[in-house]
């Protein structure tokens, strides 16, 4: 079990195809894999489905993908931000589809895909527009909605350190969606501040076991 070590972000994302479903970690700035996103843009990949908590803010990262109309569809919980002008414009122009899902259901659906759970009942969203048309069930007197897994072809993840076996650790709230997305995608590509030798991450502290990681690339963040 060894992660491929890419020399550059461009090399790391070279295999991502047009039409792919791509998970992108991050909650706001922390955990967003900016170098991988830029490399994916440079690769020319288009017609993508992006699964991420937000739909980009400012002019970089996911916002840049949207601005360049590389994204056909977004699955997220919170696209509208004060600086989400690129998403807002694309959405109003009908140039990007949106599947809105509550944040916890988004996380649990991603977790379910990685964990081989076929579907699950959650109380979140019951009785709201976001549960319209979904199956419901009363369990122990509580109304629940049936939700299905969200998987992806590729996950682009940002982490703190990765070892040659692909084991990852994160920093503070930059952990957010990284661990569950790494498990839910067929191919997981991770940018880290530093690649270390196997054995340099204490086994007890590994957050993402290397089994979930395909490719690592070291990026020096400013």
């Amino acid at each position, binding site marked *: 079990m060894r992660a491929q070590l890419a020399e550059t972000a461009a090399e790391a994302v070279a295999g991502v195809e047009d039409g792919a479903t791509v998970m992108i970690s991050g*909650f706001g700035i922390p955990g967003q894999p900016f170098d991988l996103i830029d490399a994916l843009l440079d690769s020319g990949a288009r017609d993508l489905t992006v699964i991420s908590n937000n739909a980009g803010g400012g002019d970089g990262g996911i916002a840049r993908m949207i601005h360049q109309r590389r994204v056909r569809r977004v699955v997220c919980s919170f696209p509208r931000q004060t600086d989400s002008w690129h998403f807002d414009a694309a959405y109003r122009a009908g140039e990007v589809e949106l599947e809105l899902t509550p*944040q916890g259901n988004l996380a649990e659906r991603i977790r379910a895909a990685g964990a081989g759970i076929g579907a699950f009942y959650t109380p979140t969203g019951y009785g*709201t527009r976001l549960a319209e048309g979904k199956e419901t069930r009363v369990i122990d007197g509580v109304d629940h909605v049936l939700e299905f897994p969200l998987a992806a072809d590729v996950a682009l993840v940002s982490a703190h350190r990765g070892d040659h076996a692909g084991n990852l650790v994160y920093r503070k709230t930059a952990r957010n969606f990284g661990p569950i997305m790494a498990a839910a995608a067929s191919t997981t590509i991770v940018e880290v501040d530093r690649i270390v030798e196997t054995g340099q991450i204490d086994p007890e502290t590994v957050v993402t076991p290397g089994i979930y990681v395909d490719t690592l690339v070291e990026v020096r963040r400013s």
Partner: protein
Amino acid sequence: MNPHQQDPAQAPAGDTAEPLDRDQLAAVVAADIAPGSVANLGIGQPTRVANHLAAEQDVTLHTENGMLGMGHEAVDDEIDPDLVNAGKVPVTEAEGVSYFHHADSFAMMRGGHIDVCVLGAYQVSVGGDLANWHTGDPEAIPSVGGAMDLAVGAQRTWVMMKLFTKDGQAKLVEALSYPATGLGCVSRVYTEYAVFDIEPGRSGGDGAADDGGREPTVRVRSVHGVDREQLAAWLPATVECGER
């Protein structure tokens, strides 16, 4: 130490002659949080509650982006680009902090481990239904974030809001006219004019009519700058505004 910490003694006890201002309201909410609780404070006005928590209350703050033991808002050198709250504002660590991923964080909430969450609202119904994610404007870009998870996940969901909309409509209503965030989930509503308790157990949903179940029970805990008769005139008939 939290430089934003204010004196919790400023929370008015019981009725007051004047409506509460934003900080007084936050202080009232803060004083009602039981010692030793774990709380989640929503984006916006509820965030202000943190400034009024007394150190001796030992309240631990959860933020749904993966942190238990959130400290105060970070300033200057404290700012760490990897450390933000649910509003994406830089924050600090409190003692005993831990980190976890999003699925674990929402499991913590959905599993009923958070004692209280405090949210803003467009409307709350007398059955405890909450509307705080969507105005219903068909032109709006819908965004929900963790609102629906928070509404149903915590042991107690409290709302802080102005009692009236800008055009003078009461926001404590018989039935929601805004899209619902969660049904029958709100147990207390803090406004500048009054604080209300809602008995749990009944909900209607988006614009639902009375479902024939037991009557909703809303009771007034305290009034501020208004008498109970006046309050009753503003609100749905099912709100009991009499003496406690």
